[in-house]
């Protein structure tokens, strides 16, 4: 039972990461290959704050989010003004930089040996509730003006600008929000695993978070959720296939993009309205027969 609870915790945490990337990549069309760096930053801030400075857990979490957002501002402010490729390439560098920074400050962070002894404070209920909040927030984003602005920027930046959207400011807002969620998740991860190391998230982990969204479809939060849950729980449950699952995922991504670009789920969302429409269809079908 403990094993399955562990799998569930990990899956939920990664689902949160997928959703933070969904906001950024799926809705706004910005790609961060260093998103893992925010998770790492959050994890290390939380870990260091509690083990080295003896701060309470809640304060450590707040600090983690603040540090993640500061990191986001440093990277976002110069690059989000430019063509999207710069953002992508610099976030890639940022991921490497955070890793180098952690290795360099080994006296404080433990360097390559990792940081151990972080209090185990994030149990299933906290992780579950946090993930649920993020899910509800991101799922409703598409219905709000904020989310629709994101989609407008993704689909046509010039047109969005012409309609009076401050593209740069909006991109920064989305990026900071996404970084905040990621670093909060990172803090939870640290309090859940009790041990963290600099190589926890390399560029590949960040890339995986992005491609998972494309399997489900960039217009479907449900798709991102289902693919994320499936991928990460699968990885935990079938460790023997661990090394090959990324190759399989990659092949699946390419097949989906070439043959079904809108993703497996397209525009479909799981919602009360959808349930109602399905039930309604059945009932009317019966009446017809």
């Amino acid at each position, binding site marked *: 039972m403990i094993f399955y609870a562990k799998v569930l915790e990990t899956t939920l945490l990664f689902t949160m990461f997928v959703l933070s990337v969904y906001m950024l990549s799926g809705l706004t069309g910005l790609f961060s290959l260093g998103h893992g760096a925010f998770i790492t930053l959050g994890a290390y801030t939380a870990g260091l704050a509690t083990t080295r400075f003896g701060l309470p857990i809640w304060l450590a979490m707040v600090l983690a989010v603040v540090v993640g957002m500061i990191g986001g501002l440093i990277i976002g402010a*110069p690059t989000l003004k430019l063509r999207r490729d710069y953002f*992508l*390439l610099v976030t*890639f560098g940022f991921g490497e*930089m955070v890793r180098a920074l952690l*290795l*360099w400050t080994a006296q404080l962070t433990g360097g390559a040996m990792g940081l151990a002894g972080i209090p185990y404070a994030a149990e299933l209920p906290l992780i579950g509730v946090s993930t649920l909040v993020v899910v509800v927030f991101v799922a409703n984003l598409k219905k709000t003006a904020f989310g629709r602005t994101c989609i407008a920027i993704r689909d046509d930046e010039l047109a969005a600008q012409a309609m009076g959207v401050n593209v740069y400011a909006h991109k920064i807002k989305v990026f900071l929000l996404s970084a905040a969620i990621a670093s909060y998740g990172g803090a939870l991860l640290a309090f859940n695993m009790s041990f963290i190391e600099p190589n926890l998230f*390399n560029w590949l982990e960040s890339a995986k978070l992005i491609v998972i969204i494309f399997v489900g479809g960039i217009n479907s939060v449900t798709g991102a959720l289902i693919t994320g849950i499936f991928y990460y729980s699968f990885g935990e449950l079938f460790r023997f296939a661990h090394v090959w699952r990324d190759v399989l995922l990659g092949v699946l991504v*390419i097949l989906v993009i070439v043959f079904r*670009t809108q993703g497996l789920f397209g525009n479909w969302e799981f919602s009360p309205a959808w349930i109602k429409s399905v039930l309604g269809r059945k009932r009317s079908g019966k009446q017809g027969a």
Partner: protein
Amino acid sequence: MGSSIFVQQLINGISLGGVYAVMAVGFGIVFNVLKFSNFSHGGVVAITAYAGYYLSRNLISDFWLALAATTLIGGLAGLLVERLVFRPIRIAGKPLTYFFVNSITVAMIVQQFFSAMWGAHYFSYPDFFERTAFNISGLIVSRTYLLMLVISAVVLIALTLFLRATKLGIAIRAASSDIYTPPLMGVNTDVVTGITFLIAGMLAGITGFFLGMTYTVTPFIGSMMIKGIIAAIIGGMGSLAGGVIAGILLGVVEALLIAEVGSSVTPIIIYLGIVLLLLVRPRGIAGKPYTVKA
């Protein structure tokens, strides 16, 4: 730092910079034509690093033949990637986003494939030459580094001539400035993009071979591509010449920094430098500013 060590590091830096320059050009040439950041370049680099290792250990003991064969394999790998992954979405007219996603997926597949196959093994290339270094009036110059420098220079000059003087080269340059008009002039876009990926693949082949010789071959060798990308940014996206200058510059700065402050701080300084550069002069050394939406 003594002056002889300084000159030594300078030479090493220029040589490694030559490899970065080749990488930056391989990345940039695809960026110019299709306007997306081609991360699959790193994947092709990794493939060729392994292929070069296999060839030189088992089949070909001659340095030049092994290099030529690896280059060819790189070119073929580039063509194959274009054919399987990018051509279908290009013909369907998909947005650039999907090109990018496909390219990181290719890099991911390659890295994880090698991890799964030989993740636990580190391979090193054989010594091709009996004399591995020259002693030029007190300076010790590694033969590999010297070869790297000379070959990178020759390759880049040859590529420049190709792009300037041949019909195909001109077609590639035309497609770089605008991919929609050349077909109206009777240029076959499929051939042009195919050739572009072939060239990028061959450049990746040379890079992969040299990186394999300089470092050990691991599944993560493809992420060395970050150096080429940094060079492309510093040089100005879309400018091949800028990428070459920036590549050599990066090699030198890196070598000197490592000698002066150590290898753990160097990447931090370089990345901070890039963020600053983008803040001050985003167009890089030579490039035109790119503000068009991706």
